């Protein structure tokens, strides 16, 4: 019997929503880590009971939590009671230290909002991406933007510093929400290929497992930049791929919805008839690689839907032609936002689509987006939504 487990990160804790494959009746568990900001949780494809969670606080910093039983119980990897000197590293699962070795690359500063040099300072983990093949391996996208990797279940983390050090790092600037590495896409057909995206630096790709990186922003145009087509500096909000076509990547940029069919070597705009092409989230139907979903947001200063109507837009043509999906969603007086990590799809035959709002609602559709139902209505502001399809 199939089932789904929806992992919800909010401003004040994590929630786990479970249902059978019908997705009509839901159990809600939580809050876990009550009172903490939960930027992201994600389960391992290699072992669905393994879930990683980013827990953070302005007071007490970053915590990594790990579950090995599907979210029933949690532990800080390596954070158990000290058993004596000389053992394994203890209490380092939240230790994210930038590589400052003398590589000759500008690894020590990025640009601040005013263009001055600013030291890299770790603030939090925005996104956790477990390996597709090994439950103990995962990647962490952090603020200030960098990519870290663990191979011991989150007990220790090490930077893949070739990203910051590839040459443009010193010119990266933070977006309004900070200099965050928020998207990590693993190519299921090529273990050496990975895409990442940073606000506000752009998209980057590695073809050697993270050792070396290159910007992949050709075709992007950002009018707020002195050079709108510069190699880096674009505020990419989210990338999405379909596993069967990993060279086709969709992008929700600050403004503009974009698409590439050659792994980012060249992008083209596919905003088409969207009423506004600003937004944060984007995702692809689990079984239809040309069916894409976005939630248009009014503008970069008005982070809510146009006209107070919460509408998901769907394209069945890989972009350009979009249709609004409104059934079951509030069509008046709705001024919530949907953050970049707050949309996902399950892989059941009828592909469930999920998204969470800053108003605390988590909606789902089990018919491709034709109609929507709230799973929960009154959680704290939702930061992230991920779903696991359990067989």
């Amino acid at each position, binding site marked *: 019997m199939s089932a789904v487990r929806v992992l919800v990160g909010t401003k004040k804790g994590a929630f786990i929503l479970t249902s059978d494959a019908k997705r009509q009746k839901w159990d809600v568990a939580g809050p876990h880590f009550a*009172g*903490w900001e939960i930027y992201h949780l994600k389960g391992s494809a290699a072992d669905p009971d393994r879930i990683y969670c980013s827990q953070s*606080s*302005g*007071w*007490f*910093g*970053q*915590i990594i939590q790990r579950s090995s039983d599907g979210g029933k119980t949690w532990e*800080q990897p*390596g*954070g*158990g*009671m*000290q058993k004596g000197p000389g053992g394994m590293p*203890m*209490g*380092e699962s*939240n*230790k994210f*230290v930038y590589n400052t070795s003398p590589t000759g690359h500008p690894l020590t500063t990025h640009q601040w909002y005013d263009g001055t040099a600013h030291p890299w300072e770790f603030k939090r983990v925005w996104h956790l991406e477990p390996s597709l093949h090994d439950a103990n391996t995962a990647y962490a996208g952090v603020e200030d933007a960098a990519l870290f990797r663990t191979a011991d279940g989150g007990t220790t983390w090490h930077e893949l510093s070739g990203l910051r050090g590839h040459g443009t790092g010193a010119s990266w600037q933070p977006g309004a929400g900070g200099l965050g590495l928020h998207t990590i896409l693993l190519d299921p057909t090529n273990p050496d290929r990975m895409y990442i995206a940073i606000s506000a630096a752009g998209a980057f790709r590695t073809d050697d497992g993270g050792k070396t990186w290159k910007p992949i922003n050709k075709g992007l145009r950002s009018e707020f930049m002195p050079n709108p087509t510069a190699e880096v500096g674009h505020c990419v909000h989210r990338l999405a791929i379909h596993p069967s076509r990993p060279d086709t990547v969709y992008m929700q940029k600050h403004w503009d919805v974009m698409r590439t069919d050659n792994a980012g070597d060249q992008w083209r705009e596919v905003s088409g008839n969207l009423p506004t092409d600003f937004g944060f989230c984007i995702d692809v139907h689990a079984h239809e690689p040309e069916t894409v979903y976005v939630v248009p947001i009014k503008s970069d200063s008005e982070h809510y839907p146009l006209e107070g109507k919460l509408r998901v837009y769907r394209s069945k043509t890989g972009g350009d032609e979009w249709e609004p999906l409104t059934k079951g969603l509030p069509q008046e007086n709705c001024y919530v936002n949907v953050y970049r990590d707050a949309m996902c799809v399950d892989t059941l035959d009828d592909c469930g689509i999920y998204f969470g709002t800053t108003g605390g609602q988590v909606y789902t559709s089990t018919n491709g987006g034709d109609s929507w139902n709230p799973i929960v209505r009154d959680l704290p502001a939702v930061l992230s939504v991920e779903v696991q399809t359990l067989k």
Partner: protein
Amino acid sequence: MIRVVLPAHLRTLAKVDREVQLSVPALVTTRSILDALELAYPMLCGTIRDHVTRQRRPLVRFFACEQDISHDSPDVPLPEKITSGSEPFYIIGAIAGG
């Protein structure tokens, strides 16, 4: 034994009650208390002071005998009431936000 009062969120992380008791080597200082605390409760590493610099996190404060010692050197010896255990050493989350 040295008594240490933790803020609520750190008690949850460490799975302890409001106050913990620690064995701290002689010449009790803020640094030696934090060293002993992190040794006993490694899940608190990085939550009170930075892993690398060992600097106090900006929104964490330390109090001893009703005095704010957050900005004192971590190597200053603490008052006898702390070292004798008659008064607890307080670790407090700064009042910030509503």
